[in-house]
């Protein structure tokens, strides 16, 4: 169904045309563009201002001024020649698929408009998606259309072809013999088909070595299990079953999980209305993560002190046979915290949960396993299965690889995806090593590894290629392509098949034949079902009944854990922008601010206010960090609530070989990483005296006014559980009936759309922001413009700190247009470009807007966004394919803002009418932000229906409107954040 593609560029400058992809590919411009070294256009608008020459543009501007379009441009309609099953022009198609990262797979549903994948949603049937997505999955669609992707098979940078490559391989593999010179380096994969191919390759080349490496891996979790249970096991947590959760350096709501499941489970226990007891989260961490922000109690500790804390906790709980001596004496505050946590845990045996982050050494994970076992949580809140992939000690393996390469023992090195030259530990200088052998690099973009390759092969995007994955619990899914490879790329699977010498080399055949073999009879129907549902039934792994030998573990732990040296440590985290570098060329993610720091288009060395004071460092000072004898430079950013003597560094920045979006954005810190300090280690920090401009989207970080020092209420409401209960009994306080000059407008009839956002559930993970960006064609403006306050996000996440600077609490508040019934923006617009729909939506008619910006000034929520420049001016054709055809692309000089995804409302309305004019059901219309939200914190619906979910939520005691006293009557109300503090700690 993917031959056909329509570029329906709903832009005010107006260009619509049909094209079959093949045709598009045939056009000389496209070819030429595909083959050009550095295509123009793309993200040029990111280097702001530059390219604009005055005269040219005066001409342009005045051209527009004479605007009466007399002659109409001839437009072609190019219908299909032959029909495509199930395809109706103008109606989107949805296909289930699945993607994986770092060995964690999630099921997705991709929306295709006329053959263009345009939007990613979660697959409700998939246990790790549950219909939700995270920011990265939402942003993947942009990478698909990235004009800077690898586009051409090359040999040492010279244009070549797949045919040439295959020919080369056919005579090369004859020389490999037993494969002792063959090495294959790939990212962590859960693909059963690939596993099968690996086996074949191992058989064909017994001496060959296949190394799997991830810069952000969960190996230590499995290693810990091996230590505890004697075999590597994958823990599965049931956050929805736990009343008390202790997270040890574990950002399980944020970047230490790659699926929506834990968030959904955790959030389900933060809603006091739902009867179930509110859970209580203790976080012990160095960096201030979103998990820390959700915690009821948070202890700041260096990552290197977590082990000691775990030991102390084990002892405090006096886990059987635990004659443990604490490695270093905890401080008073810490002891109090320990005692309270231990008490709480013991009070909730079997209903509590202790988790440790992937950065922590295996010993800590083993210890945690034992603690959970002792608390009777095993089998209740935590269970174990075999991991969905073959675990291996990557670090040792890559170390060996380095030696082999250095010793010239490698004749052929296949790199099947990823960007190892950039991400591998800095123990070796990889690029030259790669050049010493014949490196065949399959890469998504022309990255550092690509540059070091002998054969350069473009990799197909996950949405372009067939494959299969297994989720953490083993549930398998088929990955089906949404579109033909735009640049003729191939998948790792296909290359592996080539290596294995398979005759069938098309991804589809490989995957299908593998599963056909598994299924035997009825494979055909099973296959269809698998594709349709996006999950393959009965593939989940059975839980393993694991029993840990506590004394042995303690012995090992005791032996392994040395007291952490005092002084500064450097800790490595994946970043919210580039993750580990794989999204470095993704403008949507770069522009979406880090949830805690609100930093965009950069990474930074995060440190605590105290440490900053001690080092005499302020925001933007460039630090020189020395760790493990290696050095890196990174600008400092002070983060309240960060642990002292700890510096958090985000991976994936400072890519030297990258597309134009990500090239030299941020600072590379991978150069510090070695096996010894792969996640954290002691470091020296020096202020170089140089400064660097960091741009954040939020300049004032608390609700406390400067000058007066007063706190602003009616913006974010927070209760402790006690306060909430009291309020619930005495009912929610109704606002004083405001006296109006004019009679009320009657909103009692028809659908009245409204939204409720639960601040107790919202973890501030940015998924809604990116989803909104994708759904509503929101432009990217770049670092410079963001620094001018011109970012365009329709929904933003306001993050407020409260409490003392060194150890504050944080709360996230998603803020989009709240659709005031008495909208201040409407009354001031001179041309009525923003008016109200009878259903209570504050509408923006872009084509009417003249751009006075008066509405922006008069909006107390500052949710209106203005196109100060033509952000879509330089968007290249290919990149336009991501546009949502149901939403106008705005031109400059036009105001825009959230409209509750009115295009989705209208779509469902006309559908309902077509189906015999039935009423629209509650929950039938889902806004983009709501659909993406892993915490299910956003609910949209009709408040004229008292039974609708949103009506029920608005009746809750903790429902309130932001800036209620302004009497703007927002349709979006918020449910107050409820915290569940431990009485012993307050």
């Amino acid at each position, binding site marked *: 169904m993917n031959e056909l593609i329509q570029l329906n560029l709903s832009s005010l400058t107006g260009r619509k045309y049909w094209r079959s992809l093949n045709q598009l590919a045939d056009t000389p411009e496209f070819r030429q563009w595909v083959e050009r070294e550095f295509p123009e256009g793309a993200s040029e608008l990111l280097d702001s201002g530059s390219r*604009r020459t*005055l005269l040219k543009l*005066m*001409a342009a*501007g*005045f051209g*527009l*001024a004479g605007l009466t379009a007399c002659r109409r441009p001839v437009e072609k309609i190019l219908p299909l020649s032959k029909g495509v099953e199930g395809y109706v022009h103008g109606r989107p198609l949805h296909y289930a698929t699945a993607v994986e990262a770092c060995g964690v797979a999630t099921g997705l549903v991709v929306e295709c408009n006329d053959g263009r994948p345009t939007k990613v949603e979660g697959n409700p049937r998939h246990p790790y998606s549950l219909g939700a997505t995270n920011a990265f999955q939402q942003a993947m669609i942009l990478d698909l259309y990235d004009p800077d992707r690898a586009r051409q098979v090359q040999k040492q940078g010279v244009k070549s072809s797949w045919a040439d490559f295959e020919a080369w391989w056919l005579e090369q593999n004859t020389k490999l013999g037993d494969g002792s010179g063959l090495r294959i380096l790939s990212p962590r994969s859960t693909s059963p088909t690939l596993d099968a191919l690996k086996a074949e390759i191992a058989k064909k080349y017994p001496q060959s070595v296949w190394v799997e490496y991830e810069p952000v891996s969960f190996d230590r979790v499995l290693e810990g299990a091996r230590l505890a249970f004697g075999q590597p096991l994958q823990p599965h947590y049931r956050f929805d079953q736990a009343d008390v959760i202790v997270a040890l350096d574990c950002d399980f709501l944020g970047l230490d999980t790659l699926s929506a499941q834990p968030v959904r489970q955790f959030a389900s226990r933060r809603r006091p209305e739902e009867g179930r007891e509110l859970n209580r989260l203790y976080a012990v961490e160095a960096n201030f993560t979103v998990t820390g922000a959700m915690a009821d109690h948070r202890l700041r500790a260096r990552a290197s002190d977590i082990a000691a804390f775990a030991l102390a906790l084990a002892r405090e709980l006096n886990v059987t046979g635990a004659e443990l001596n604490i490695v270093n004496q905890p401080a008073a505050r810490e002891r109090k915290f320990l005692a309270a946590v231990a008490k709480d845990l013991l009070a909730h045996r079997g209903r509590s949960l202790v988790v440790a982050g992937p950065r922590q050494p295996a010993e800590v994970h083993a210890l945690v396993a034992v603690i959970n076992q002792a608390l009777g949580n095993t089998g209740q809140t935590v269970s174990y299965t075999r991991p969905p992939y073959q675990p291996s000690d990557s670090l040792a393996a890559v170390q060996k690889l380095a030696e082999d390469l250095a010793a010239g023992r490698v004749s052929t090195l296949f790199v099947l995806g990823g960007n190892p030259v950039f991400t591998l530990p800095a123990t070796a200088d990889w690029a030259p090593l790669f050049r010493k052998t014949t490196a065949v690099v399959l890469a998504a973009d022309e990255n550092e590894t690509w540059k070091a390759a002998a054969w350069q092969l473009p990799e197909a995007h996950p949405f372009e290629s067939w494959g299969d994955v297994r989720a953490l619990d083993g549930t398998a899914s088929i990955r089906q392509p949404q579109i033909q490879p735009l640049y003729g790329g191939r998948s790792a699977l296909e290359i592996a098949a080539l290596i294995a010498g398979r005759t069938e080399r098309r991804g589809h055949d490989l995957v299908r034949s593998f599963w056909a073999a598994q299924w035997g009879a009825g494979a055909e129907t099973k296959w269809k079902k698998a594709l349709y549902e996006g999950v393959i039934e009965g593939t989940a792994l059975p839980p393993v009944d694991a029993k840990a030998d506590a004394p042995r573990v303690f012995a090992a732990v005791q032996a392994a854990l040395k007291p952490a040296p005092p002084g500064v440590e450097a800790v490595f985290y994946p970043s919210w922008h580039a993750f580990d570098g794989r999204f470095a060329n993704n403008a949507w993610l770069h522009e979406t601010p880090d949830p805690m720091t609100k930093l965009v288009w950069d990474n930074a060395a995060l440190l605590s206010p105290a440490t900053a004071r001690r080092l005499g460092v302020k925001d933007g000072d460039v630090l020189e960090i020395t760790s493990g004898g290696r050095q890196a430079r990174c600008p400092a950013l002070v983060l309240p609530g960060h642990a002292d003597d700890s510096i958090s560094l985000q991976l994936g920045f400072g890519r030297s070989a990258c597309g134009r979006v990500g090239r030299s954005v941020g600072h590379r810190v991978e150069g510090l990483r070695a096996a010894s300090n792969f996640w954290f280690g002691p470091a020296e920090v020096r202020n170089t005296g140089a400064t660097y401009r960091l741009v954040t989207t*939020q*300049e*004032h970080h608390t*609700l406390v*006014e*400067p*000058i*007066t020092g*007063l706190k*602003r209420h009616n*913006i974010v409401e927070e209760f402790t559980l006690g306060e909430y209960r009291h309020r619930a009994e005495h009912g929610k306080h109704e606002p004083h009936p405001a006296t109006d000059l004019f009679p009320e407008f009657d909103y009692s009839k028809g659908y009245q759309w409204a939204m409720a956002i639960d601040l107790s559930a919202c973890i501030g993970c940015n998924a809604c922001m990116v989803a909104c960006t994708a759904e509503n064609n929101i432009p990217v403006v770049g670092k410079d*413009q963001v620094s*001018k*306050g*011109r970012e365009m996000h329709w929904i*933003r996440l*306001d*993050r*407020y700190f409260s409490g003392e600077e060194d150890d504050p609490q944080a709360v996230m508040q998603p803020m989009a247009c709240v659709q005031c019934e008495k909208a*201040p923006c*409407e*009354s*001031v*617009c*001179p*041309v*009525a470009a923003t*008016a109200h729909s009878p259903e209570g939506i504050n509408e923006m008619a872009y084509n*009417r807007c*003249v*751009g*006075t*910006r*008066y509405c*922006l*000034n*008069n909006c*107390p*929520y*500052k949710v*209106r*966004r*203005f196109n*100060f*420049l*033509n952000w879509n001016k330089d968007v290249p054709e290919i990149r336009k394919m991501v546009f949502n055809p149901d939403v106008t692309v705005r031109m*400059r*000089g036009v105001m825009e803002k959230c409209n509750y995804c009115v295009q989705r409302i209208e779509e469902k309305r006309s559908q309902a009418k077509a189906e015999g004019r039935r009423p629209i059901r509650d929950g039938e219309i889902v806004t983009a932000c709501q659909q993406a939200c892993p915490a299910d914190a956003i609910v949209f619906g009709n408040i004229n229906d008292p039974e609708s979910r949103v009506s029920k939520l608005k009746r809750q005691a903790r429902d309130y409107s*932001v*800036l209620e006293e*302004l009497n*703007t009557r927002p349709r979006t109300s918020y449910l107050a954040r409820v915290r569940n503090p431990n009485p012993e700690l307050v």
Partner: protein
Amino acid sequence: MADLALDPRMELNPPLVRGGMTYTDVTAKISSIVEGKPPKQWYIAMAFAVPLALLLFACLGYLVATGIGVWGNNSPVGWGWDITNFVWWIGIGHAGTLISAILFLFRQKWRTSINRAAEAMTLFAVACAAIYPLFHTGRPWRAAYWLFPLPNELLHMWQNFRSPLMWDVFAVSTYGTVSALFWFVGLIPDLATLRDRATTPLRKTIYGLLSLGWRGSATQWRHYELAYLLLAGLSTPLVLSVHSIVSFDFATSLLPGWHTTIFPPYFVAGAVFSGFAMVVTLMTLARWIYGLENLITMKHLENMCKVMLATGMIVGFAYGTEFFIAWYSANQYERFIFLNRAFGPYWWAYWSMIACNVIAPQFFWFRKFRTSIPAMFILSIFINIGMWFERFVIIATSLHRDFLPSSWGYFKPTWVDIGTYAGTFGLFLTLFLLFLRYLPAIAISEVKGVLHQQVSAGHAAHGGSH
């Protein structure tokens, strides 16, 4: 004719026309400006003004081509220098109409030798002001034809007449039109004078056509005077309404620091304040360039200084009231915004405003300053600066920190902002200099009227000496 200067009564109440000028002298003196070659200073001034005006067009061209992004405006500060300059120029414009209309109604004879130039100044200031609302949209061609309620078959859409911006459109365009009419009506008899003095056929034709065949017959004067009186009567409430309505742009919003009932009177006073300052600046210059000491006497200037002192006090009082109300309202946001003005990131703008608008005019308590040309020239410039800062403080500092701390920001102007503002000066000066060059800068017939009264008063004093 008796030498008026000798008359003791004249000394007590110094004459508005000095140097014993006769009707012919008055005609000759004023017409000579138009008829003779302009002095060197005029060319120097033009050499300064015209390039600036060109800079304005360059900046606007760049803006139109590229978008409003070339200015410093951002979110939350949606209005920056653009609307600041708009309000400032409109304010400047007020003195003209005030002098011609209100002083006329109050029978203030001393207005006669300055009203013409002041009215011209009004027109040119309004022209400069109008540029901003039109161009701050970045797409003036849309603003231009969508801000006026023209029946439109294509769209069937109408304006939103609840919007203060719509009121602005009507107020400013009405004000511009009426001022222009007022100014032209005043010019007619003087154009007739120029016509009658004209020597070349070209001048005869041009001034002839412009003066509409004015004969100065008793009948014509009768209707003329009534028309002029009516225009004065209409302009008076109009001039008050214009800045009131401009202030509604802010007063009717819900933004702390904007949402204030005191704005209309306070804006009008401020407008008059800045307007007179600008008149003094220009008049002292014109007086110097063309040696009009006998027509623009110290009495004229001193009176204007007094007006500046008075309005300056009103403005200062308004600043105080704002703070008091903010405190008295017990509204957290109000309180903060005003403290933020004085002690926030824009403190420098606030205190410059206070220094220029409240402190500077206090010098006018002293006759020495009221009668010293350099002093009043410098002070008037200070006041113009101060009034610009007032508008900037109201607009930028209220916007940059409003309700939600998450969306607070800061405004920085770009070179295009600065160029555009400087450019409007160029346009203003160019127009004003052309006016001086080609039209009678002082109302000839009115001055003669005043002179006539002096003369008859003189006769009365000499008590039937003949």
